[in-house]
């Protein structure tokens, strides 16, 4: 594949989807095949195929990292980091972002049709892990003719995939950027996810996951799951600053259970707008994958051992108000990398926005990522 023909090659561009034969063996012992993957590419793979960057998205993210979302019309979710003149720049990099398997934006997930029955998989879809998502990404890169990644970059669950990459494909990753993330899901992380799952499964519309036929989806449950999770993405200071105890469109408390407070109204809005773009069963599957995530556990209890085969450079960034994946989690990764002599950088950045900071305006983040990516060229 010569780089000049990329514009004619249907594998490359926006809003791509591919069906890979598979089967993809999964950590559970099951296998998935065929595997659908929805993805986008930006920029051009250079002649020596050395400029590929994979961007990994978070729990409810998608492949539209730097192009307008087809449902919401909003700009790409990481336009601050990926785009012209940004640290990840299609003028210099060949950028790939794929919807994770288990999701609902075009990649295989519980809403996909099971070829065996012709009906949606629903809860018959196999349970996945973060490593399974990464292996599916590797299959996509094979299809695109990308052997090595100049960088794999992700925040939150995207950071988990980025960190997993060099543990599974040591010789395919040159550098790894892990933002606001962790090497394992903590008890608290699992606990919050379980609240969300129970809210979905308690919704009478859920019906064991078989809700696709009549369009009566468990939106109330999914909205509550989103509301609970959304609190964990913000900081107390951020909530106080944005809403305080201010009332919503009224002068006095109603002595009822309407959304008296602005923060209630905001959360309800977050929940309602989320159900329009996300599948409840996908939410169950992806949160489960995150809960099963523990890189050290997969390497005999030693996180350091997970990276010994890799020559990759690592850059870790945490945010001081992120209590979902706090700085201490990033430090655990850094200490393991130092123990193994890996080239590692780590910085805790200051932001009032909690976990969500990685998606929001943060010039320092851009400076760090830009410098780190350029540092590899020295």
């Amino acid at each position, binding site marked *: 594949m010569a780089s000049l023909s990329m514009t004619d090659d249907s594998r490359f561009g926006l809003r791509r989807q591919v069906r890979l034969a598979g089967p993809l063996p999964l950590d559970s012992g099951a296998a998935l095949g065929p595997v659908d993957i929805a993805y986008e590419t930006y920029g051009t793979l250079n002649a020596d195929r050395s400029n590929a960057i994979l961007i990994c998205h978070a729990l409810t993210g998608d492949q539209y990292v730097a192009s307008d979302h087809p449902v919401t019309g909003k700009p790409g979710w990481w336009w601050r980091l990926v785009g012209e003149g940004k640290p990840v720049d299609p003028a210099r990099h060949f950028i790939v972002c794929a919807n994770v398997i288990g999701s609902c934006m075009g990649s295989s997930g519980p809403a996909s049709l099971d070829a065996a029955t012709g009906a949606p998989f629903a809860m018959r879809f196999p349970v996945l892990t973060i490593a399974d998502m990464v292996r599916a990404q590797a299959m996509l890169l094979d299809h695109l003719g990308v052997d090595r990644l100049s960088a794999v970059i992700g925040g939150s669950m995207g950071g988990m995939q980025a960190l997993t990459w060099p543990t599974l494909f040591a010789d395919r990753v040159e550098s790894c950027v892990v933002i606001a993330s962790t090497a394992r899901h903590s008890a608290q992380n699992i606990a919050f996810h379980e609240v969300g799952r129970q809210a979905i499964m308690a919704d009478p519309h859920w019906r064991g996951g078989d809700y696709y036929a009549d369009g009566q989806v468990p939106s109330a449950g999914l909205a509550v799951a989103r509301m609970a999770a959304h609190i964990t993405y913000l900081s107390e200071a951020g909530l106080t600053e944005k809403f305080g105890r201010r009332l919503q469109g009224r002068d006095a408390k109603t002595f009822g259970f309407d959304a008296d407070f602005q923060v209630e109204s905001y959360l309800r809005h977050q929940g309602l707008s989320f159900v329009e773009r996300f599948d409840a069963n996908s939410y169950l599957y992806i949160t489960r994958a995150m809960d099963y995530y523990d890189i050290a556990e997969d390497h005999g209890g030693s996180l350091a051992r997970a990276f010994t085969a890799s020559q990759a*450079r690592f*850059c870790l960034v945490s945010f001081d108000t992120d209590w979902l994946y706090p700085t201490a989690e990033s*430090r655990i990764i*850094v*200490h393991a990398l*130092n*123990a193994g*002599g890996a*080239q*590692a*950088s*780590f*910085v*805790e*950045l*200051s932001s009032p926005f909690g976990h969500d900071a990685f998606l929001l305006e943060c010039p*320092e983040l851009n*400076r*760090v990522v*830009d*410098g*780190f990516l*350029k*540092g*590899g060229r*020295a």
Partner: protein
Amino acid sequence: MSEQLRPDLALIARTVRQGARVLDVGCGDGALMAALRDNAGVDARGLEIDGSNVADAVGRGLSVVQGDADTDLRYYPDASFDYAILSQTLQTTRRPDLVVEELLRIGRQAFVSFPNFAHWRGRISLLWGGRMPVTRLLPDTWYDTLNIHHVTVDDFRALVKDRGWTIDGQWFLKGDKETTHANANLFAEHAVFLLRK
């Protein structure tokens, strides 16, 4: 990168072997690391407590980890570097002796540079003024200085002797010039020691 290095750093940069592996503890914005990388092909890693300094250093393509010399050195394996460097940081640590022990465990050799609190200007300030010295080199007042362990050249030599470390080199600075070893405790503004176990 041709930025002017602080005199003690320039001295260390001149002494580090080509292509060595270096851990710079308290590396600031990475000026020394960048010079070592660019001029001597050194594989340099850094540890720095201040986040904005770390962002500067990573922004220039260096491998720097935000952390604390008092608590984070234990995560580095034995003899994993040719040199561990502690420049102008010794006097800010909670347990300078333990930090140097760690440097000598991690690095085959360790550079330690520090301001000499027994320099005559400081002595005069204390003797005649009765006040803790505030000088060009030590510009902060006693209550807002980061320097929590005031050390002199002779103090440091005594510590080296007590712990049985070996001095492979020692340099003394007055301004940006090297000065004599004789009466260094009185006349040196800065000291740089190269130690091994």
